[in-house]
């Protein structure tokens, strides 16, 4: 269930792209449908919150399309039926309190109807209590640092795409710009609390499949949480302009089973103490 990066051709012919778009335009009203290459909607949700957000957006999208079709159905009917070239004589009405009240009240009621599920989802998102473990995330210009305070693990996560690929001297690989040297490793099926901050300027930590996006602000700690349901590798990016490396500090999360996570923790601890004892004499 990892994300699908189906299109890894760096340069498709232009005509093809334009034709694809034309085909796609015909599918606009069914926003959920995925074409062969282009993703038209959110990335596959793998957490309870991402699922709820997905449904919320479906609801909002449906409401918006319905409003659009009704209002502009009326307008385009008028454009075809009430044109001067057909000899239509203008009416003179220009006021109706009843109708003004109706089209003030109805939108208001629609808004109340969507505000209810939106508020319920929001309150769940904001509830960071009862988490099984905590990960501290720190944004730097331009990389992420991950700390597991209870496990005593800490490491930096850097972009691993070679510069030669960015400068078009080498063919780009499948996960171009969305790959790191040390991914964040998390267990599935557990409520994980994130504490997010930054060391220099504001960054923002976003993994689309989790429905988690929280700003990393120097001097402040923001909290959010997730509970991953499906093992896999999930990719995201910094979403707050943070200088010239903004596009080059991706986020990669490896979600593994509890057992694998424990194994990984043990291995990391051994690696870190080895590195520590190797470094100590030099100091």
């Amino acid at each position, binding site marked *: 269930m990892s994300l699908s990066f189906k*299109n890894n051709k*760096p*340069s*498709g012919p232009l005509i093809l792209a334009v034709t694809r*778009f034309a085909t796609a335009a015909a599918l*606009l009203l069914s926003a959920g449908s995925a074409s062969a290459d*282009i*993703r*038209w*909607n*959110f990335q596959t949700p793998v957490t309870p919150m991402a699922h*709820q*957000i997905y449904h*919320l*957006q479906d609801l*909002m999208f449906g*409401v*918006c399309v319905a409003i659009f079709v009704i*209002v*502009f159905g*009326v*307008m385009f009917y*008028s*454009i075809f039926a009430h*044109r*001067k070239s057909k000899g*239509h004589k203008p*009416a*003179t009405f*220009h*006021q109706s309190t009843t109708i*003004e009240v109706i*089209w*003030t009240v109805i939108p208001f009621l629609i808004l109340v109807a*969507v505000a209810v599920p*939106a508020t319920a989802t*929001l309150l769940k*998102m*904001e509830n960071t209590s009862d988490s099984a473990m905590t990960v501290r995330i720190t944004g730097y210009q331009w990389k992420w640092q991950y700390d597991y305070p209870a496990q005593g693990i800490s490491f930096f996560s850097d972009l691993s795409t070679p510069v030669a690929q*960015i400068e078009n001297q080498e063919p*780009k690989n499948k996960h*171009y*710009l969305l790959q790191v040297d040390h991914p964040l490793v998390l267990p599935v099926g557990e409520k994980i609390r994130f504490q997010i901050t930054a060391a220099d300027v504001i960054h923002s930590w976003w993994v689309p499949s989790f*429905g*988690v*996006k929280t*700003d990393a*602000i*120097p*001097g*402040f700690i*923001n*909290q959010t949480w997730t509970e991953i349901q499906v093992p896999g590798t999930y990719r*995201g990016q*910094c*979403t707050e*302009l943070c200088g*010239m*490396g*903004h596009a080059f500090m991706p986020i990669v999360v490896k979600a593994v089973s509890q057992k694998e996570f424990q194994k990984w923790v043990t291995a990391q601890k051994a690696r870190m103490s080895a590195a520590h004892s190797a470094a100590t004499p030099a100091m």
Partner: protein
Amino acid sequence: MASVAANHEEHPVGLKRWLFTTNHKDIGTMYLLFSLLMFFVAGSFAMLIRAELFSPGMQIMKPYFFNQLITMHGLVMIFGAIMPGFVGFANWLIPMMIGAPDMALPRLNNWSFWILPFAFTLMLSSFFMPGGAPGTGWTMYAPLSVQAPIGMDCVIFAIHMLGISSVLGAINIIVTILNMRAPGMTLMKMPMFVWTWLITAFLLVAVMPVLAGTVTMVLMDRHFGTHFFEAAGGGDPVLYQHLFWFFGHPEVYIMILPAFGIISQIIPTFSRKPLFGYESMVFATASIAFLSFIVWGHHMFTVGMPAPAEMFFMYSTMLIAVPTGVKIFNWVATMWRGSLSFETPMLFAIGFLVMFTIGGLSGLMLAVVPADFQYHNTYFVVAHFHYVLFAGAAMAMMGGCYYWLPKWTGHMYNETLGKWHFWLTTIFFNLTFFPMHFLGLAGMPRRIPDYALQFTDLNRVVSISAFGLGLSQLLWVYVVYQTVKGGKKATDRVWEGAEGLEWTLSSPPPYHSFATAPTVK
């Protein structure tokens, strides 16, 4: 005195006329031409951005220069193209619409305009400073703007100058509307364009000083050792965002309310039917303006505000949909059972209606906090605000330009070319900005010079369409040039269904619009 009265039309010629003019039409013309120039300057930045984004990998520039371009594209479009453009319309039209000879404060008017070229020279000169223009985005968030090179200071001082220009212009508009109306023109008889500008002017007076204060705090953090936005010194980076968006959201309505006004003039004319629900249109505009002061938090849902604050900003933002909806419904009701014809201004008005509504509806989706967490700072947002600012503000000005150009110049424009301009703009606009919704949903952040491979196809479509959109605007310049130079003589009323005082004047109108005040029944 007698000789002055006899020589109403006399004025200096050449450079002196434009440098020293206190005439609302001359100043309006300068505002409009300046806005057009800035539209192309900022548009050319957009072309460079789209060229870079044509393919993954860095193509023609370095990432930091890309960030400079997005910053200057935003600042110059907003402060250089859209705001002065609407002030140009206000200068030309408000005195003619309310039956006044000129603006109330003509010398102030001259100064408001002439600040602009200097402000933009300073702002654009930042490209040539060590370190280049600021690469912070037009939002200039601290602490990124605190660490930016010296070009940031140029932008801060340019914003101070633009703020002075805007506030003086706004005061002039308020004073003119409140004091110079012809006998019989009560407030509730004013054309909608005048109403929307009166309300916009109050917004400007209220929020431009907030922006000036905010950027001054950045300036002090940069050079005078203060820590307004630095947590280590007891400050708060998020405070910058609260201050900026307290200005920034009313600013959005500063850029759209005059567009509402233009559309409210065009639609009744070509429907040959009075505007439906005039009073509710006025009240809707006023409530939008009021609500614009209490929704700023929706630009910053991800900064970690507590749940009650997020709920407040979500509800207040959703509420704006109600008066905005009323306006859309009233425009459609104005067209309903009218006698419609589709000259270029009407095409732009209908295009505005449809595309602005798309932007409004995606705005409603953005208001829903949990969903906003996914949309925030992605291309979905870029799509949203270009639907309201390009298809909304800019295309309303294009429509207004075709609508009043015959009145201003005395010549009819070329209708065929005008329609071509509309269709090319509309088609390329949608091909440019509609796919951005999908890019955002699929996970492409905004403000990145390079992107992952799965975004390639749509970015190609967007880039090619953007070049088409940019080139189409040259046609507009050609049509305007042709109309200024000559063409079929325009009648005084120009349009069969046109109502309002400006159409009672000759085309082109006399140098001083109404030497004697008309009486409004």
